[in-house]
């Protein structure tokens, strides 16, 4: 439906605080993205701009060249789901149907099936839902709306582990049947990383990484072996972290190794670094 989502030199200032700084970001559609960032990094602000909940102080967010802000046609195809407590006296199913009125692709049968799967009651007041059920209701709305751009901003927060697994399964299944752009912002990196095709990392209001997951994780290599050999190997490389145990050292190196370097590492143990570890080291405070 759409081809590309673009943040064009976007800044956001709230009162005296610079929340987002000159963000330029281009996202291909119909992929699942993981948006990672520490608390306060600007994840929710970034997503609010895409969902047109807020207006950029400067720059713009555009889809195929058309600005999203207050654009009704685009808005019905962008949904922003957060796990917020609603003080809503309407019954659950009625409330879901109300939100569906603005969603041309809403699938009622799928919504019903999801409610069963999450054991979400239809006939109770929204405000009386437990945390887990509140989360489930938001997720049902987010999935069944089948919006071309679907944003889940830590939507799973109230869910326990079994419910989260159901959520992940539904996201993947429905994505395969109805390909669309899905952005998942999360702190549960190791639990969710295998779902991502692309990874976006935001730190202190700036985009640090926007890459395919495989490309990104292949940049991190852990090198393990005798201290002197590891030291010799890592000269001139960006070392994110080092650990020594007895005579053995493990160094986490950032930057892709060439075939020649891999040959040279003969005798040293090379392994991939997890997304979580890379994330931790790329977003830690300067000391």
């Amino acid at each position, binding site marked *: 439906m759409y081809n590309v989502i673009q943040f064009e030199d976007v800044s956001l200032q709230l009162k005296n605080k610079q929340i987002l700084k000159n963000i330029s970001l281009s996202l291909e559609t119909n992929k699942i993205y993981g948006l990672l960032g520490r608390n306060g990094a600007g994840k929710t602000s970034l997503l609010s701009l895409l969902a047109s909940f807020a207006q950029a102080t400067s720059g713009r967010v555009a889809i195929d060249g058309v600005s999203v802000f207050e654009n009704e046609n685009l808005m019905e195809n962008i949904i922003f789901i957060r796990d917020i407590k609603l003080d809503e006296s309407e019954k659950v199913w009625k409330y879901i149907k109300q939100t569906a009125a603005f969603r041309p692709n809403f699938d009622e049968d799928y919504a019903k099936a999801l409610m069963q799967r999450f054991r979400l009651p239809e006939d109770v007041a929204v405000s009386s839902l437990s945390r887990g059920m509140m989360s489930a209701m938001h997720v049902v709305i987010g999935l069944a709306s089948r919006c071309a751009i679907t944003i889940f901003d830590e939507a799973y927060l109230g869910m326990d582990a079994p419910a989260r697994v159901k959520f992940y399964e539904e996201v*993947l299944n429905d994505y395969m049947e109805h390909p669309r752009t899905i952005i998942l912002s999360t702190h549960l990196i190791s639990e969710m990383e*295998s*779902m991502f*095709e692309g990874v976006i990392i935001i730190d202190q209001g700036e985009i640090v990484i926007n890459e395919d997951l*495989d490309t990104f994780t292949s940049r991190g290599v852990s090198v393990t072996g005798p201290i002197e050999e590891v030291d010799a190997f890592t000269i001139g490389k960006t070392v994110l972290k080092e650990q020594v145990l007895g005579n053995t050292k493990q160094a986490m190196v950032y930057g892709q190794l060439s075939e020649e370097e891999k040959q040279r590492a003969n005798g040293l143990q090379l392994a*991939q670094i997890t997304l979580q570890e890379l994330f931790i080291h790329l977003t830690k405070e300067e000391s």
Partner: protein
Amino acid sequence: MRLTFDDTKPIFQQIAEMIEDDIVNGVLKDGDQIPSTNQLVAHYKINPATILKGFNQLVDSGIVYKKRGVGMFVADGAFEMLRNRRISQFQQQYIEPLIAEAKKLGMTKEEIQKMFDSYER
């Protein structure tokens, strides 16, 4: 197929290796259909693009082929190809570490030979 992944290699590579293992072990024979993307997504909860990447690696090396609208199948001669590839890697992957360990332990060639012989039937 294995039930989980480890952290040491990219997942798409592990997907490709699992299929290869199944071919080498005889679980999948020439002409057999390999598991579908949907099945693997449902089982491992991973992005379908990751699985396709693994499959494409197998297609590129001629181990599986695509039948449009039907699925992916083990190519004729895939077993032989993988067997030959693994034999050529055997020395590096198994013999070299074996010799290195034996050296560390100060074992003689005869001792190693004796161990080998005890496996002969």
